[in-house]
C-alpha cells in the first residue's frame, strides 16, 4: 500500500504539447452549439466511431431534445428504428429483438468490456458519453488527437497495432487513424475534410457530455445580471442606512 502512494509521487511531468485550437461556437458567455455541426457530428459518430465506442448514457430521444442536434421527432424515430435492441422477456419467457424506440439507450457495439477488449487488441475503446469532460484539454484534446496521427520520429519502434499520435498522452494509441478526407458523405453538402469531421464529432461529443450547456449559459446570463442589479440596489440601501451614523462603509 505504501507502494501505491509512492507510485503516485513518481509521476513524470508529462511534456506539454500545445493542443490544436479551433473556433468552437459553444464557448463564451452566449456560446451555443452549431445545430448543423451537431447533426454532422452524430453522422460521423454513428458511421465511424460507433463500431467500437459506446455512448451508454445517451438515449435516441436526446437527439431531438432542445439544445442538442434537434433532429425532428420523425427523424429521431427513424434513427432509433434503424437499430435493433433486445427486449423481454415476453409472455413465453423469451427475449426478443425489436427495432429501437426513441426512449431506448444508444445500442452498444459490444456486449461487455471483455468482448470490446478482445476485439481491439486488449485496449478498451472508452465510452464516449462524457469523454469530452473526462480528458484534460476537453474538446481541444479530442480534436487534436483525431488530427494528431503522424509517422513516428525516427528510432521509435511501435508494437503491432500501436500507432503514433502527437497529442495522445504518451504518444502511443491503439486506435488507428479513424478519419480520412471523405470518410463520410455529409447529407447537407458540407465537404467532409478531416478537420471538418474532427470538429463536428468533437462538437457532438461536447454536447453528449454536457447536454444542458445551452440552458446553462442562458440561465447563467440572466442569473448574473439579476445578481448584479440586486447588488447595486443593496449597495445604495447600505449607503443610506450607514449614513445615519458617522462611519464609513
Amino acid at each position, binding site marked *: 500500500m*505504501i507502494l501505491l502512494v509512492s507510485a503516485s509521487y513518481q509521476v513524470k511531468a508529462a511534456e506539454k504539447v500545445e493542443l490544436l485550437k479551433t473556433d468552437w461556437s459553444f464557448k463564451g458567455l452566449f456560446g451555443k452549439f452549431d445545430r448543423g455541426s451537431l447533426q454532422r457530428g452524430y453522422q460521423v459518430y454513428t458511421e465511424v466511431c460507433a463500431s467500437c465506442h459506446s455512448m451508454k448514457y445517451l438515449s435516441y430521444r436526446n437527439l431531438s431534445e432542445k439544445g442538442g442536434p434537434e433532429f425532428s421527432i420523425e427523424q429521431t424515430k427513424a434513427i432509433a428504428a434503424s437499430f435493433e435492441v433486445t427486449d423481454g422477456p415476453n409472455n413465453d419467457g423469451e427475449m426478443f429483438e425489436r427495432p429501437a424506440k426513441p426512449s431506448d439507450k444508444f445500442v452498444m457495439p459490444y456486449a461487455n468490456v471483455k468482448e470490446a477488449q478482445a476485439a481491439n487488441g486488449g485496449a478498451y475503446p472508452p465510452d464516449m458519453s462524457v469523454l469530452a469532460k*473526462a480528458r484534460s484539454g476537453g474538446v481541444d484534446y479530442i480534436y487534436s488527437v483525431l488530427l494528431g496521427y503522424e509517422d513516428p520520429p525516427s528510432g521509435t519502434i511501435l508494437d503491432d497495432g500501436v500507432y503514433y499520435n502527437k497529442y495522445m498522452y504518451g504518444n502511443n494509441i491503439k486506435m488507428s487513424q479513424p478519419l480520412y478526407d471523405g470518410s463520410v458523405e455529409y447529407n447537407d453538402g458540407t465537404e467532409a475534410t478531416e478537420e471538418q469531421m474532427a470538429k463536428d464529432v468533437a462538437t457532438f461529443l461536447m454536447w453528449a457530455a454536457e447536454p444542458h450547456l445551452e440552458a*446553462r449559459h442562458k440561465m447563467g446570463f440572466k442569473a448574473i445580471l439579476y445578481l448584479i442589479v440586486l447588488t447595486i440596489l443593496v449597495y445604495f440601501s*447600505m449607503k443610506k442606512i450607514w449614513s445615519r*451614523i458617522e462611519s464609513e462603509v
Partner: protein
Amino acid sequence: MSDHDYVPKSKFGKWFNDRLPLLTLGNHLTDYPTPKNLNYWWTFGGILSFCLIVQIITGLTLAMHYIAHADLAFESVEHIMRDVNYGWLIRYIHANGASMFFLAVYIHIFRSLFYGSYKSPREIIWIIGIIIYLLMMAAAFMGYVLPWGQMSFWGATVITNLFSAIPFIGEGIVQWLWGGYSVDNPTLTRFFTLHYLIPFLILGLVVLHIWALHVPGNNNPIGIDIKKPSKDTVPFHPYIVIKDGFALLMFTIVFAFFVFYSPNILGHADNYIEANPMVTPAHIVPEWYLLPFYAILRSVPDKLMGVVAMLSAILVLAALPWLDTSKIRSAIFRPLYKQFYWILVIDVLILGYVGAMPAEGLYLLIARVATAYYFIHFLIILPVLGSKEKTIPLPLSITEPVLEATLSSATIREKESLN
C-alpha cells in the same frame, strides 16, 4: 446587555416568551452590539453560514436521486446531470459550493490570523472553528468520493491508506474503514452516510461558534476591547445585516460564474471516468483546498511522520492562542508580525502549488522548505515575537482612529471637550 430586560409588546408574545424565550433570542440577535469599524473581511462569517445552508439544501436534493452503490453511483450522477430537472444546476452548485465554502473559510481563518481574533477571550470560538474546519475537510473528502469516478476511488484509496501508517493496528484500522480489503461498495455506502451526517454536526458547531462569539462580542480591526453598547458599536440589524448582505451578493456573483460558465474548472477530468480498481490514474491529486496539507504529507520521506506532520499542521492551529504570546491582537499595531503574516500567506500558497505538482526534484525541495517554515512560524517565530516585538501604541477607542480619517485630531479634541 439589555437582553434580560427585554419584554415583548403583545400579551401573547409575553406569555410565549416567558415559556420559551425565543423572542428574547431574536431581540438579542437584532440588537447585538457590533463594532462599527468591521471591514469586509468580517463579512465572511455570514457568507460561510450561507455556504453551509446551500450545501445542505442542494445536498438533500441530490440525495433524493443519487444511488450509493459501487455499480450505480457513477450512472446515477449522470442521470442527475441529464434527466433530472435542473439536476445539472443542483449538482454544479453543490460541487462548486464546496470550493466556495473553502475559499470563504480560508479568508475567514486568515482574517482571524491577521487581526488576532483567536486571542483571549476568544480561544473557545477559535477552537470550535478549527473543529468545524476539520469536519469540513472530512465532509468534502467523502463527498468527492461519492460520484465514484477515478479520482474518487483513488483519492479514497490514498487517504484511507494513510491510517495504515499507525504502528501495529494501522492495517486493521484501514480494513475497518473500508469494510473489506479494498475501497469498495461498503466504503462508498459508509462514506455516503457520514457525508450526510457531518453537515448537521457542522451546523450544531456553528451555533456554538456564534454563541461563543456573542459572549465577548466581535473582535475588530483595531483589536482593542470596546464597551458594548457604546458609540463604538452599531446594532447588528440593520447595519451589519445589510453590509453582510451586500458582501454576500458580491460573493454569489463569483459563485455563479463558476457554476454557469466553468463548472468543471475546479474539478479533475479523471473524475468523469468511472472508478476502475485495475487502472491507476497517472497523477492522483486531491481537490485544490487540500493541496497545502497534501504537500506537507509528501514532503516528509517517512510515511508515518508524514501523516503526523500533516495532522500537526492543523492541530498546531488549535494551540495558536497560547503560541502567540503577544497581548496585542491586531497586526496593524504589530509591524514585525504583519510582515511574518504575509510571509506565512505566501508560504501556504507555495505549499498549495507544490501540492499539485509531482513530488520530485525542485518541487520536493520547495515543499520541504515551505513545510519547515510553516512550523517555524507557529512554533518559534510567534512565541519569540510576543516578547521581542516593539508594537505601535493602541488607540483608546474605535471612534478615535475611525474619525481620524475624516476629521483632524484637533476637531476630535474639540468634540471631546464639548462632550
